[in-house]
């Protein structure tokens, strides 16, 4: 019996406590109605239930899939530490999402299918921990999105140039947000060379230059993790700087109709997004930004102070 329990031990770090404790999700919050379906989803440590992954109860779905990190009945396999739903479940989730949206507003999708007019262009990292719509509380239709490894803006990359061209010239977005995050795998691989010899190494190569240009400041940080996090922030600033040099933005500056630029960083450890202060005055003096930017886009402090 002891052997069996050991085999069933959850290897994921999704719940604190003794590692030999079976993977039992935290009890549902008290606001959820007690129903027979909820009690049947209780995971009982045992050979049979360990292999079964049941969908979350309807009350969780109605709240928009928000809940604890461990999903109800999720099985944390060693190679699947997040306990993500199976592929077959995804299409069922989609049907449930549609139903929940239609129940609150029957016209929701009809309105959404109108031509898009998003006020924001978001350039972020491909990292899976940046779940955009949830993280920013932004409903679909607000953010035109481009995501790549380590949120790079390269003037020779057709992908991002076409996104910029469409967003700035056609959609006329009001803001461009470049968002990075702490604990970025792309930044890490640029410094430690884990992916050397591959396409990824070529792609994140500009981050090495950011490192060498700020070496003094970075080496002064004693903690290595904090050093990488600071490099993530500097990388975001560099990418916003690269934005100013793309042809779409330069044309927009010339015709005096351009979006406001923002650099954000997601603190993965707390989930909070922080706005970085851009060196706007320096960039205006060096000619990367027009002088009118100082007048129309005040830069003194971030829009909201985040603790």
């Amino acid at each position, binding site marked *: 019996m002891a052997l069996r329990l050991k085999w069933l031990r959850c290897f994921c*770090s999704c*719940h604190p406590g003794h590692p030999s404790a079976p993977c039992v999700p935290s009890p549902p*919050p008290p606001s959820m109605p007690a129903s027979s379906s909820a009690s049947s989803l209780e995971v009982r440590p045992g050979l049979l239930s360990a292999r079964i992954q049941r969908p979350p109860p309807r009350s969780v779905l109605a709240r928009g*899939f928000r809940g*604890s*990190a461990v999903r109800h009945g999720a099985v944390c396999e060693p*190679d*699947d530490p*997040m306990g*993500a739903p199976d*592929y077959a479940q995804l*299409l069922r989730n*989609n049907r449930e*999402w549609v139903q929940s949206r*239609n129940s609150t507003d029957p016209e929701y999708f*009809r*309105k*959404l*299918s109108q*031509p*898009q007019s998003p*006020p924001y262009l978001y350039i972020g990292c*491909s990292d899976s921990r*940046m*779940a*955009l*719509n*949830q993280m*920013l509380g932004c409903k*679909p*239709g*607000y953010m035109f*999105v*481009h995501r*790549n*490894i380590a949120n790079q803006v390269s003037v020779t*990359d*057709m*992908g991002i140039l076409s*996104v910029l*061209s469409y967003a700035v010239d056609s*959609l006329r977005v*009001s803001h461009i947000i470049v968002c990075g995050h702490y604990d970025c*795998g792309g930044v890490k691989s640029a410094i430690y060379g*884990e*992916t050397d*010899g591959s396409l*990824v190494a070529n*792609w994140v190569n500009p981050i090495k230059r950011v490192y060498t240009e700020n070496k003094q400041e970075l080496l002064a940080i004693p903690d290595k*993790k904090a050093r990488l996090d600071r490099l993530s922030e500097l990388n975001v600033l560099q990418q916003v700087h690269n934005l100013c040099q793309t042809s779409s933005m330069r044309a927009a500056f010339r*015709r005096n*109709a351009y979006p406001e630029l*923002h650099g954000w960083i997601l603190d*993965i450890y707390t*989930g*909070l997004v922080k706005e970085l202060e851009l060196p706007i005055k320096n960039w205006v003096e060096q000619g990367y930004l027009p002088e009118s930017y100082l007048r129309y886009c005040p830069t003194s*402090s*971030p*829009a*909201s102070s985040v603790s």
Partner: protein
Amino acid sequence: MEPRRASVVRVAPIPMVQSYEAHSNMKYSVGEDELLDEDIARILEGNQRWVEEMTAGDPEYFISRSLIHKPKYLYIGCSDARVPADLMMGLQSGDLFVHRNIANQIVSTDCNCGSVIEYATNHLKVKHIFVCGHYGCGGIKYALESDGWGMNDHWMRLVRNVYRLHAQELDEIPDKQAKLRRLVELNVAEQVVNLYKNPHVQHSVKLTGFPKVHGLVLDIATGLLVTIPIELVTDPLHRYDHVYLFSKPPTVSNPHHKLGVSEHGSPLKRRPATQGFAEGQSLDGAEKVG
């Protein structure tokens, strides 16, 4: 603190820039009580509310999820604002590795998308790859209608190539909307084929059977995901196996390989180790962090 205002500066009309989506000044509201708000501060407040909501149920939520980055899925989709990748499949933060570009293109020579696919396949070892298009895609519409200008023409040529490959079928569709919808589906199928051309995907599928590649189309008008029928993909695949299938695994130059003989037959000299990352050391000489 006074919130910032929307800051697009329009000094004079801009006649030379053609906007085929004539909606530059259009504002729409999704719900009666939800007004379109261009204030960045509101978004950051939304983020704070999300953090409070997630940590209310589980204070360790972010810490525990930050320790692991092992998403099961790679999503390659359109940049369109109306497609919520994680919401529409009921996924949470940490599940979906995402790449988004205009008209969800997968280009062989694109370092941007190529690096995402390589990282997801080789390092993250994702189990499934989704290529997701959507009806009403502006990129597809542009490729069919526009005369072409600026940067986008180069990218939209990729969609025109898809049109060329299926011109016979598409030209027979009389209704324009039906033609656009069919081109969206064919575009997704073609990108799935492009994925199979990728040597890293081929090698991984050969070794482990994963990742499995799926083509999806989101119907924004209903919110439902439609799966691309497999015949759309497998027919061109099997027909051109002799063209695209690699017999050997991809050669990624590995700095840690033992030096032996170069391909010309001459023995490779071992150079003295230099400081820095040329020899596989980290940039700051420090040990690798977690």
